[in-house]
């Protein structure tokens, strides 16, 4: 006895609903985050800070086969995933990183992305005991670091 009274949804309805959701995410989340990131990079470029950051982070980022300035991608992604992605796109546009560098960093951007937001949205909502927060943050950073090694290996194949 499987009676459904809801009006029948078609494949087309499903696609349109998803695409509409995609439009909403693009307008409300992606575009503002990209703008934040591009302006941040513009500030770093105009002040000359990007060169300084590049030099400071070169030893660390070099381990993953990345230029020092790529550290800004990871720092921004910690605050907001879209921000990290935007910084990567902006650095690519200015020729400071290339496609290989981006490929290496994409999983890391996600794995350590938006942790401050997700602390509330995931750990808070799920009522996770506060005492595990440091471990959970540490796991995200470990994931991100290991993923960059793995991606470095994959892009070299």
């Amino acid at each position, binding site marked *: 006895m499987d009676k459904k009274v809801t009006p029948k*949804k078609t*494949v087309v309805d*499903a*696609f349109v609903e*998803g*695409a*509409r*959701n*995609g439009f909403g*995410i*693009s*307008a409300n989340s*992606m*575009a503002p985050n*990209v*703008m934040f990131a*591009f*302006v941040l990079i*513009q500030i770093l*470029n105009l002040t000359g800070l990007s060169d300084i950051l590049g030099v400071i982070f070169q030893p660390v980022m070099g381990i993953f086969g990345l230029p020092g300035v790529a550290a800004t991608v990871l720092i921004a992604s910690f605050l907001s*995933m879209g921000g990290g*992605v*935007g910084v*990567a*796109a*902006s650095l*690519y*546009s*200015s020729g400071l990183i290339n*496609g*290989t560098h*981006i*490929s290496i960093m*994409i*999983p890391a*951007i*996600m*794995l350590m*992305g938006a942790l401050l937001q*997700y602390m509330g*949205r*995931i*750990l*808070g*909502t*799920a009522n*996770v*005991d506060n005492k*595990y927060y440091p*471990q*959970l943050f540490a*796991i*995200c950073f*470990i*994931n991100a670091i*290991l*993923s960059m090694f793995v*991606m470095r290996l*994959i*892009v070299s194949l």
Partner: protein
Amino acid sequence: MKERKSEGNEVKVRWYGYIVLVIAILFFSGVFTAFEGPLKALDFTNLAGDFGKLGTLEEGAGSLASNFRGTGGAGAKDAWMFAMTLFPTVMFALGVVKVVEYLDGLKAAQKLLTPLLRPLMGLPGISGLTLIASLQSADAGASMLNTLAEEGEITEKEKNIFAAFQFSGGGTLTNYLSSCAALFAFMTVPILVPLAVVIAFKIVGANLMRIYLNKVCKQ
């Protein structure tokens, strides 16, 4: 009229759900990107297509932007033009995901995943639905996890392991196809590869938490 919510092992998948799942994976994997013949159409990048070119220039006549974003932009205005180039990719990708969901593709993934949860992460099969939901939406996943724990379906330890899975790379699928879509054009690997790496490391993270809880917090 007793209708139970299908959860865990009881999930019902229409037969074509599995086919849809396989097609969806192939669709985003990029295996058909450079294919000759009609199978070319079974590829995300090919269907996403291209923006029109602005025109052509004789050799040595300067440079021409490849699309309406232009070249040499910077700051907030360049961000705006760049963001505009991403709308179609994100809308298209999330539309496809919704179709896959509508055709039971995600349920098929859940069904296939359920028996693997215990060996992979030490989670009970009933977590399957929550896991699939958490890949689509960080908020949905977290609130469903909370419900599972409150109703006593999973233990406190299992909840913390599951939280580690969800916390690293939350809302994976949706975030990857929306935020990271900005980088698809620059990547040197197929679209599916970084996504697979993220999911693999989410499982690694859950196991780090599992090891931690087993060894360090043994009471």
